[in-house]
């Protein structure tokens, strides 16, 4: 494993409402880390801060690469990826959505298409590659979001409530995908869920958040 994460005393407020109060978390080994807690406990905010999408008010996020603290620059951002609960699908085909991360890295044409297709097949969306992405069901949209993140081969994948708005069948498929990712690569997955049973099914390490604080790990 080459990329570790340390979140130290993270605090975050929105409009005077303190969402995170000195939240700390770290890992050095790959695996599946599941942040769990009730709705509104701050787990999604914590995930967004850990994935560098938001800045904390106080505290520090440190990424450690081969024993050294990594600069929080584009290079580091390209080694991690976050799938949001509302995925943010681009108004184009399924295949082009998945190739996006490759295109912005300068990988184009046949190489990009083959990599994107492999990622789509991994999440079971291969046959829908030419379909308009906005026509997918919510479960398929989540799987597309995961494929779009996986194709860029991140070292850490953040998943924010990946099954919150999908049916039972797609929940099972997404859980299988998450477990397959662990088997097939050294990818570290950090995800949030409010479903305690799902957390137990998937987690190598379970992290409970309550009232903006990590209460057990």
């Amino acid at each position, binding site marked *: 494993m080459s990329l570790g994460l340390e979140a130290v005393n993270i605090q975050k407020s929105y409009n005077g409402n303190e969402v995170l109060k000195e939240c700390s978390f770290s890992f050095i080994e790959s695996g599946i880390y599941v942040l769990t807690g009730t709705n509104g406990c701050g787990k999604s905010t914590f995930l967004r801060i850990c994935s560098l999408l938001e800045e904390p008010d106080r505290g520090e996020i440190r990424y450690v690469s081969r024993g050294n603290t990594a600069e929080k620059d584009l290079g580091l951002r390209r080694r991690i990826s976050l799938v949001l609960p509302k995925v943010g699908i*681009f108004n184009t085909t399924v295949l082009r959505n998945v190739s996006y991360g490759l295109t912005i890295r300068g990988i184009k044409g046949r190489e990009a298409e083959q990599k994107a297709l492999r990622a789509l097949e991994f999440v079971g969306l291969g046959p829908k590659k030419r379909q308009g992405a906005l026509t997918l069901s919510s479960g398929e949209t989540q799987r597309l979001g995961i494929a779009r993140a996986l194709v860029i081969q991140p070292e850490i994948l953040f998943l924010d409530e990946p099954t919150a708005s999908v049916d039972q069948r797609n929940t099972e498929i997404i859980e299988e995908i998450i477990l397959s990712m662990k088997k097939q690569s050294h990818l570290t997955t950090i995800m949030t869920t409010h479903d305690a049973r799902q957390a137990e099914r998937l987690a190598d390490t379970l992290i409970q958040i309550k009232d903006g604080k990590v209460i057990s790990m």
Partner: protein
Amino acid sequence: MSLIDALLQALNLIVHLDRELIDIIVLSLKVSGTALIIATLVGLPLSAFLGFKKFPLRGLIISILHTFMGLPPVVVGLFVYLLLSRSGPLGFIGLLYTPSAMIIAQTILAFPIVTSLGHSAIVSVDPIIKQASMTLGATPFQVSLTIIREARYGIMSAFIAAFGRVMAEVGAILTVGGNIAGYTRVMTTTIALETDKGNFELALALGIILLAISLIINSLLHVFQKKNIAGAGR
């Protein structure tokens, strides 16, 4: 001449591709098309700048652009006339009563429409798109391009709305172009002149062509607006 006779003669002109008719249509498309291209080249980057950057006078600029969307063409014509007339600040260039003067006037009319509607299209892209592209490792420039691409149907609507406006206006181009036969005479000014003269067949023929162009423009606008609404429902 009865309306039916005028209509039949107008159709005859269209079917036989009358030379004068074709020249007038081509000049109209040239003037309005060029004005639209210039307005887009300046307006689209400005609409993106207004959409992405926050700065103190941003709100005021957007309000001014919204207001200018309804500029009366004849006022624009007067303004350009005063600018280009012999005693005006730019009179030495000698552009008055030329197609270039008509292009300048129509650019001024199209610019606020392209910029304002283009800006609306860009800011109405779901903020999740920006976040999604950031989480996939896009640079700030790539994020901006992604947002513009997502706003493409709205931007096309802005483009078509501006084209419809300049193609149909008569006040500005009549004031600065002068309606000179074979040189600055376009569809709308010809319709006005020929109606005054009682030559309804050419006026009607051009009216039919203008209506057909308007129908095409509005059909395209409808298509792009539908695609835009579909995109907004992601």
